[in-house]
Every structure is written in structure tokens, then in C-alpha cells.
């Protein structure tokens, strides 16, 4: 029985997330098939290209809605990175994932209503959502309409450069997706985060997070960013990450 349930994922965000997730998987699969030329026997090249183009358009449109929604519904606040002490927080979170969690330590930055992501999540999501994805959409549009691309950039072929950037970013997105899916199993139970992304509610179980929230509510003058990035202290027993 959870101690508290937080409505982390509103319906618009969940719809975007699953549409985007399915789209990215199709794009990665068809992208690999086309780029490595492994089509022919099991999938038609023409079909792979068409599917890649249609899915690319769907993902680009869904990204546009995510971008608008993030600012409209204040979702973007979860992606705000405070640079002061950023390295230390990243180091703490990485330390937890690498060996802290195996030694029974508690997560240094557990989710709260104000802090949805730990520093590693926040950083990777920020770069993925606000750098890689827009770049991949722009290069994708360029490759769909090659006449938009500059013919030559100095001695380099413009379309070739665009395609290389597009493929490299697609590959990075694939690596991110693998880690993202695996990291989602690090919850109260392996399926807890997947359930949250379906029903919208994140369950907080036995964890000092409740105490932390109480403290934050009492201290009204505390800077919100500080509170978001402040690690948990105390000797409360470890609880799985959400």
C-alpha cells in the first residue's frame, strides 16, 4: 500500500509519451534497416522508407505538441537544470546507480511533487527533448526535401552531412531509449513506472520523501530550485526508486 500517490503524468503527457515511444521505435528500426542496407529479404526498402517518412512526420507533430504542452502546463519546470552544484549531483546519482543501490543506500534524489526527475534523468531528458529531438526533426525534414539543403558546405556534400548528423543523432536516441527502458524498471517493482505512465499516478512507498515534503511545506522561503535539487539526508532505510 503506497504512502502517497502523486499525479505525475497528465493525460496529454501520457498520450504524447506512448505515441512518441512507438514512433521512435519504428523510426529506429526502419532507420537501421535503411542505413545498414539489411532490407530485402524480410522488409521491402520502399516500405521501410515510406514507414520511416510517415512515422517521422507523426513524431515531429507530436513533438510540437509536447513542446507547446510543456510550456502551457508548466511541465518544462521539471527540465530546468540548476548549474550550481550540477556536477556534484550528477556524481551522487551516478554513484547511487553504480554501487549505492546494491549496498542498500537510499536514492539521493527521490521523486517528489516538485522534483519529478533525478539529476541524471533531468540532464539526459533535457538534452534529448530540447536538443537531440529538434535537431533530428530538422535534419529529417531536410532529408525528406533535399532541395532545402545547401548543396555543398565548403568541400562537403550538404545532403551527406545532414544524413550523417541525422543517423548519428538517431543512434544516440536508440542508446537513450535502451537505457530509458531499463531505468524504468528501477522502481518499487520492475513494472511500477510503466503502470505510472499508463494511469498517470506515481506511487510513493516507504521513503523519507514524505518527511522531506513536510519540511519543504514548512519552510516557505526556501528556493524552489534548491528544494528540487537538494539530496535527501538521514538514515531512513532504503526504498526503491520511482
Amino acid at each position, binding site marked *: 500500500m503506497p504512502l502517497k500517490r502523486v499525479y505525475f503524468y497528465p493525460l496529454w503527457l501520457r498520450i504524447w509519451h506512448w505515441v512518441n515511444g512507438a514512433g521512435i521505435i519504428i523510426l529506429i528500426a526502419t532507420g537501421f534497416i535503411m542505413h545498414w*542496407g539489411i532490407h530485402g529479404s524480410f522488409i521491402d526498402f520502399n516500405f521501410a*522508407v*515510406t514507414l520511416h517518412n510517415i512515422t517521422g512526420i507523426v513524431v515531429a507533430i507530436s513533438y510540437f505538441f509536447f513542446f507547446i504542452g510543456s510550456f502551457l502546463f508548466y511541465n518544462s519546470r521539471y527540465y530546468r537544470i540548476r548549474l550550481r552544484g550540477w556536477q556534484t549531483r550528477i556524481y551522487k546519482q551516478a554513484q547511487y*546507480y553504480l554501487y549505492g543501490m546494491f549496498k542498500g543506500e537510499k536514492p539521493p534524489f527521490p521523486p517528489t511533487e516538485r522534483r519529478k526527475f533525478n539529476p541524471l534523468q533531468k540532464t539526459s531528458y533535457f538534452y534529448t527533448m530540447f536538443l537531440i529531438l529538434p535537431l533530428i526533426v530538422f535534419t529529417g525534414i531536410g532529408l525528406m526535401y*533535399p532541395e532545402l539543403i545547401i548543396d555543398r558546405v565548403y568541400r562537403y*556534400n550538404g545532403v551527406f552531412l545532414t544524413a550523417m548528423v541525422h543517423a548519428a543523432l538517431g543512434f544516440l536516441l536508440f542508446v537513450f531509449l*535502451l*537505457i530509458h527502458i531499463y531505468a524504468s524498471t*528501477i522502481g518499487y517493482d520492475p513494472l511500477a513506472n510503466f503502470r505510472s505512465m499508463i494511469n498517470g499516478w506515481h506511487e510513493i512507498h516507504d521513503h523519507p520523501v514524505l518527511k522531506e515534503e513536510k519540511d519543504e511545506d514548512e519552510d516557505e522561503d526556501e528556493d524552489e530550485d534548491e528544494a528540487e535539487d537538494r539530496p535527501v539526508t538521514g538514515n531512513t532505510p532504503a526504498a526503491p526508486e520511482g
Partner: protein
Amino acid sequence: MLNLKLKLTCLAVGFTAMAALAEEPLMREENHLCLRCHADQTYSFFNEWTQKEERRIMNPFHIIDTNLYLSGVHKSFSCIDCHSMDYETYPHARELKLEPLATCIDCHGGDDTYAQYHFDQIDADFARSVHAVKGGEHFTCGKCHNQHYYKVIARNSTHISDIVSADNQMCLSCHTNAVRYRLTSVHEYPDFSTVHAWLPNHELHFRSVRCIDCHTSVEDSLMVPHNILPRENAVKNCSECHSANSMLQATLYKYENLQARETSGLLSAIKQERPYIIGANQVPLFKILSVSILLATLAGIVIHALLRVFIRKKSE
């Protein structure tokens, strides 16, 4: 003194101009008689019936572009080297219209001077082509290769786009023109766009590769294969080109004149003149790098998951 200096300068300019003129290709003197009419859209003559000087419109198919002629391989030829001497009189005799024109092989066949061009092999290759089989004797070399303006582009050009454009122009001059198509074929004129509707981005394909890259079989011993295959035997499998082992390496990209421009190094593929082809342009270093990153990520995930399972079991 000043006068002497001026004279010397004039002399130097004169020599320079003469040298420049010597390098410029010159039209053969005897061709001017023909070109007086055939280089213009109109021509005039004295009509002995009416006893008047008359001006008429020249048949556009009989107009010679002298600039193109002088840039072609046959620029040093006289008109009457190939055409009858009787054309020197006007009105031309009616039977001259039936004059059999020389084909490439009539001059170049069996001649060691042109051995490097493999004319006899080209002739044999062409004889197996759908053009020769269906078009018969009507389908002469000149139907594709305009003898007046022909340039050796595949052999000399360092730009793929020039080779593609010049080559495809030969095919498209008939295959997008029903009138010219009828010159050699009694078959129904196939609509070019409809026939190629299956090909994605066909405009982009036609700008990037030659028609013959799909419509001939790979021929190692010829610079340009001439065995045009029937429609049903043309390449339709995308992976023939869109793969690491692209057949274009053995066709369009095989020319040494193009390879001479290509550079070595990591980004050589991007610097080359070649257009980007999905699946065919792979940088080996990037491939190794991406596979390594992927394997390292997967290994990290598996080790982390195993440790989680192992430690959980231990604590239970």
C-alpha cells in the same frame, strides 16, 4: 622611342591573339557553304521560277548549332565527309533524302586507332539490346548519339552530375517524346512517369543515376554498357544500389576520372562528388564505433540487471 614601344606592344598583342586563335577550334572552310543556311533559323535563295530572292524557315531538325559542333568530337570534319557532295547544290536533289548515312562502325569498326574505345565490342553488346532486337536496322547509333555534337563525357568528366545528365538526355530525348519514339518503334509509347511510378522520388533518381545503371547488366570490359535490357529485366530491387555493396560501384562510380577526384581519409565519402545514397554510404569507422557503443550499453544493462537480481535474492 615611344613609337617603337607602341609597335612592340602591338606586335606582342598580335602574337597573343594569333596564339589564342590557333587554340580555338575552327570550322572547316568548306562547311561555311552549308552553314550559311543550316546554322540559321531562316535561309534565303534565288528562286529561278519567280526570279526573286526568297527567304524560308529552316526545318528545325536540320539546323546545326555551330558552337556545339565545334565542342564535339567530330569538330574537324567536313559536312561532306559524311553527307553526299551533291548537297553542295541547291535545291538539293530529291533522292538525297534517301542517302544512307554512315554509322559509327562504318568509320570506327576494326580500326586500331580507336581500339581503346572498343567500338566492335560496343556493337556486339548493342546487338543484344532491346533497342537492336525490337528496333532492327532503324535503330542506328545516331538515334542516341548525336554525331554532330557528341562528346566523350563518361570518360573525361570529373563530375558525376555531368555524366548522369548527358547520358540520361540521350534516353529521355525519345522516352519523353512520343514523336521521336515513333521513329524507331511501332510499339505503344509507354508513358515515362507511369512506368516509373513505383520508383520513390523518381525525379531525384533521374538526377543522381543514369537510366542505364538500372537498364543494362553490369559490364566490366566496357566503359558504358550498351546492352539495354527489356523493361522486365531492369533492376527493381532497391537493395541492389541501397546497400554497402552497391552495384553503382561497378557502374556509375567505376570511372577512373571520377576516382581521381576522390580523397582518402575519414570524411572522404562526404567530400566526394557522389550523391548521398541511403544504405550505400557507410563509414567503416563509424560502424565499428556505433556497434561498440551499442554492445557496451547492452553489456552495462545486463550486468546491472543481474546484480540487482542477485543482490535481491541474497537479501531475501
